[in-house]
């Protein structure tokens, strides 16, 4: 029997006995004992919980000393793993992995050899240590997000607050990601100061086995922009750690660059093996694997299962193109063979990388509303939409028509300018203006404004959407109505209007804005919101309620109000809508004359290509033409059976009509 590995269990009393017996192997720290990195295959410096194998020369020369140390341990926490207990491994053995790129647009390749990659991503120590130095919470939030997403890359993300962390423990880590903000004039956040001082000191341990990446948060309005992140990046390199991804410095709008950094860092750190070696040959395969969409399972624990078995499907991508310099537009079509779990965003990235570098689209995180596109008329977040989910299940290639979001100026290809929306929001002052109101005190003595739970739920439903950019594009009318402020502005105004915290003065101002012709009354059809997955019934209902309020403020006057009022009136009168009454009452004499001269009336009478129908529908056709002539609607409706029931319902619920 030979030694394979040695590790330390919980309960070390730091008596130094082991260090005296085998100083080459054991190092007693303040609260436990570590297995030295020089003797381990993984190069780590910790208690060796992962049971990393010892180097061959160590086993050959120091086995007796290790056994002596174990025997002499008064609390028996030194556990020697002998070769019988585990499968024997060669020292320099690395898993045999055969990987081929799985997603290449336009080329159907051999299926991915996932077994080797799967083994690589699931065996050994796959810990990713994410440190945050945070003052306002942004870094902490990003660190948590990174750790959560690490599971998609076969990594186990562990978040560490820098505050109180031991620099020696940090030095033993193999994969480290640092998210650190800068405070004041280039200073470390409070929670990072102590660890930084330890790292910056001359006595800091070497970090030769570590692979790292740094995300620096800062503000360009300060002279020492992202200085803390820069300091960490430089110091870790000085201590021997290997940088796997170049540091990214973020300004106050950090989400998009942070997202790109996170994706790249997770890919690279995932390709680091137990021994700290980077497997470059796996990087593309890991990237492809993850971009294929690792689905989150429905279980409560949120574990992830790689969806590797999605079939390849044929996809015909018709992409809108626009060149602002030449002022030309058109459509480019690619016939691709893609894994079903490929996201639409990755398909576009692949096209851009392999076929057409000039293709423009907005890249970003999977839930970034600025990346949204119109796919077969569906407003879609391409980073979170799998190709196979866009299939209608019919035989033949999946046909996807990809267009820029409607309602915005197109900058180039699929990129649009959201500036117009921002200006509309600004002009409508969608901001919250509170009124002074009574508060109650929480158990902690903090004053809070109470809100009825059902009201809170109602307000949440109105604001729980993919983003104003997306809601704006869900309207079928917004692209055609020049002065219309758009549904997202209306929705925000309505949410403020419904908010009990809003001041009375502000409510009156919102009412006046909503009742204007450029807000919700300019929306020609609210039905499209209900069917758009990124909007939905709640948004549709909220916009409908906003419209009702606008009509009430106007006293059902104007064309909008008259249309609704006379519709209700005719329905109450006969149970059926009377088109003639609507036509006459809403358009008025001028409107009727306009339609007479524009040919609308003529087409209505003749029916144009509509077929059938009597030429004379009503006696009035003879005395007051064109009423009742041809396809003109009837002047009078026959009442529905039991019409009194209809009247009774009206009288019970709404006596206005």
């Amino acid at each position: 029997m030979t030694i394979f590995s040695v590790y330390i269990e919980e309960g070390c009393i730091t008596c130094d006995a082991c260090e005296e017996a085998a100083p080459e192997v054991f190092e007693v720290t303040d609260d436990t004992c570590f297995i030295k990195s020089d003797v381990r295959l993984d190069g780590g410096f910790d208690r060796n919980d992962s049971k990393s194998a010892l180097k061959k020369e160590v086993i050959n020369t120091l086995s007796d000393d290790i056994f002596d140390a174990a025997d002499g341990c008064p609390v028996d926490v030194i556990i020697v793993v002998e070769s019988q207990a585990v499968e024997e491994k060669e020292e320099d053995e690395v898993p045999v992995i055969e990987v081929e790129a799985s997603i290449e647009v336009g080329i159907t390749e051999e299926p991915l050899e996932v077994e080797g990659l799967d083994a690589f991503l699931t065996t050994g120590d796959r810990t990713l240590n994410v440190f945050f130095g945070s003052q306002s919470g942004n870094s902490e939030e990003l660190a948590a997000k990174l750790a959560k997403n690490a599971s998609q890359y076969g990594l186990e993300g562990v978040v560490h607050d820098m505050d109180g962390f031991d620099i020696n423990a940090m030095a033993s880590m193999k994969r480290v990601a640092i998210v650190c903000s800068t405070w004041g004039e280039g200073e470390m956040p409070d929670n990072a100061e102590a660890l930084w001082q330890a790292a910056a000191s001359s006595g800091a341990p070497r970090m030769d086995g570590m692979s790292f990446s740094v995300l620096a948060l800062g503000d360009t309005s300060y002279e020492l922009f992202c200085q803390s992140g820069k300091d960490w990046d430089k110091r870790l390199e000085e201590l021997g750690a290997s940088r796997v991804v170049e540091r990214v410095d973020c300004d106050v709008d950090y989400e998009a660059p942070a997202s790109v950094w996170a994706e790249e860092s997770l890919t690279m750190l995932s390709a680091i093996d137990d021994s700290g070696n980077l497997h470059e040959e796996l990087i593309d395969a890991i990237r492809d694997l993850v971009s294929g969409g690792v689905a989150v399972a429905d279980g409560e624990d949120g574990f992830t299962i790689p969806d590797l078995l999605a079939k390849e499907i044929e996809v015909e991508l018709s992409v809108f193109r626009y060149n602002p310099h030449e002022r030309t537009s058109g459509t480019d079509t690619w016939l691709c063979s893609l894994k079903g779990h490929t996201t639409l965003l990755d398909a576009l990235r692949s096209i851009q990388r392999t076929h057409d570098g000039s293709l423009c689209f907005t890249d970003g995180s999977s839930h970034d509303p600025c990346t949204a596109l119109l796919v077969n008329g569906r407003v879609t977040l391409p980073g979170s939409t799998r190709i196979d989910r866009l299939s209608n299940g019919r035989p033949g290639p999946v046909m996807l028509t990809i267009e820029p979001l409607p309602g915005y100026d197109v900058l180039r290809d699929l990129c649009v300018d959201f500036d117009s929306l921002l200006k509309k929001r600004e002009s409508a002052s969608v901001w919250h203006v509170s009124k002074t109101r009574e508060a109650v005190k929480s158990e902690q003595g903090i004053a809070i404004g109470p809100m009825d739970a059902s009201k809170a739920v109602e307000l949440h439903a109105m604001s729980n959407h993919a983003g104003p950019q997306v809601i704006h594009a869900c309207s079928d009318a917004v692209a055609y109505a020049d002065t219309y402020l758009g549904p997202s502005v209306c929705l925000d105004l309505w949410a403020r209007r419904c908010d009990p915290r809003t001041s009375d003065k502000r409510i009156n101002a919102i009412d006046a804005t909503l009742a204007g012709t450029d807000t919700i009354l300019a929306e020609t059809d609210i039905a499209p919101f209900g069917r758009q997955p990124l909007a939905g019934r709640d948004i549709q209902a909220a916009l409908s309620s906003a419209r009702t309020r606008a009509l009430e403020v106007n006293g059902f006057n104007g064309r909008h109000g008259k249309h609704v009022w006379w519709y209700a009136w005719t329905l109450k009168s006969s149970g059926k809508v009377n088109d003639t009454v609507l036509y006459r009452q809403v358009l008025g004499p001028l409107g009727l004359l306009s339609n007479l001269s524009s040919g609308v009336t003529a087409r209505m009478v003749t029916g144009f290509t509509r077929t059938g129908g009597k030429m004379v529908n009503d006696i009035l056709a003879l005395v007051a033409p064109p009423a009742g002539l041809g396809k003109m609607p009837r002047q009078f409706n026959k009442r529905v059976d039991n019409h009194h029931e209809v009247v009774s319902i009206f009288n019970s619920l709404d006596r206005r009509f």
Partner: protein
Amino acid sequence: MPIRFAYHPGNAAHSSAPEVDETMRAVCRTLGIELIDLPGATSCGAGILGQANRSLQATLNARTMSMAEDLGLDIVTPCATTAATLYEDLNMMKSDLNLMGAVNSTLEKTTGRTLEGTVRIRHLLQVLVEDIGLETFSKKVKNPIRSKLAPYYGPNLQQEGLIGGDDVFDPWYLESVIQCSGGIPVRYPSRTSSAGTPGLFSEEQTVLRQSATILSEAKAKGAKMVISACTLSHGVLDIYQGKASRSTGLNTNVPIVHLSEYVAFVTGNFPKRLAMLKTRLAVIGD
């Protein structure tokens, strides 16, 4: 044994679109569908009444749907707006039992009726594809129209859950009906977009632009005729076609018929009207 449905003709079929009602009855006779009229049924409100009073619209529709429940039948309609409005109100009540209770309370007080919520709402298109079946339908085709034809669904019908197994954004039911009857369906982006019909009287310029886009896109794909599953949109796309073209400068000159008209013609009904339509098809164009 014929398939039986309670029949709601929609909002305009009694007045400005009588051809829809006439052809719907003929289609159902041909395909072995028995329509049971609901003489007491009211207009569905088309979402317009709902803008004034949501619960009023729901209560009126609950009354109509309870009539079908009394007959033990599902409701069929050729009007996409009516199908969608009834479906939305029914689902809203089924998912909000407080609302259902309030509606039934009013309904019982005023009419003596109550709604159970067991009725289903079906559009003619869904019945054709799912109840009759495309194979059966294709055997009934006598007068195929062998041209490029553009399907128009509109946004009301294309709601998740309303149109059975069809895809809401990349539908194929109407295309399948066209193919089964000898036509060649064309694919164009705005086939499920709104024509803006509810805003016709108040936001005419916007509606004209929306309508012109739909018609010009269909025409640009070579369509000789548009087939609409929506009665109200059908009317707007037909009557305001010329005005839309003059307003936008787009080429919108294309005939448009309702789905029920189209199916009636290809199954051998109203041969004189079909002849007239074909003559119009021959003379309309660029």
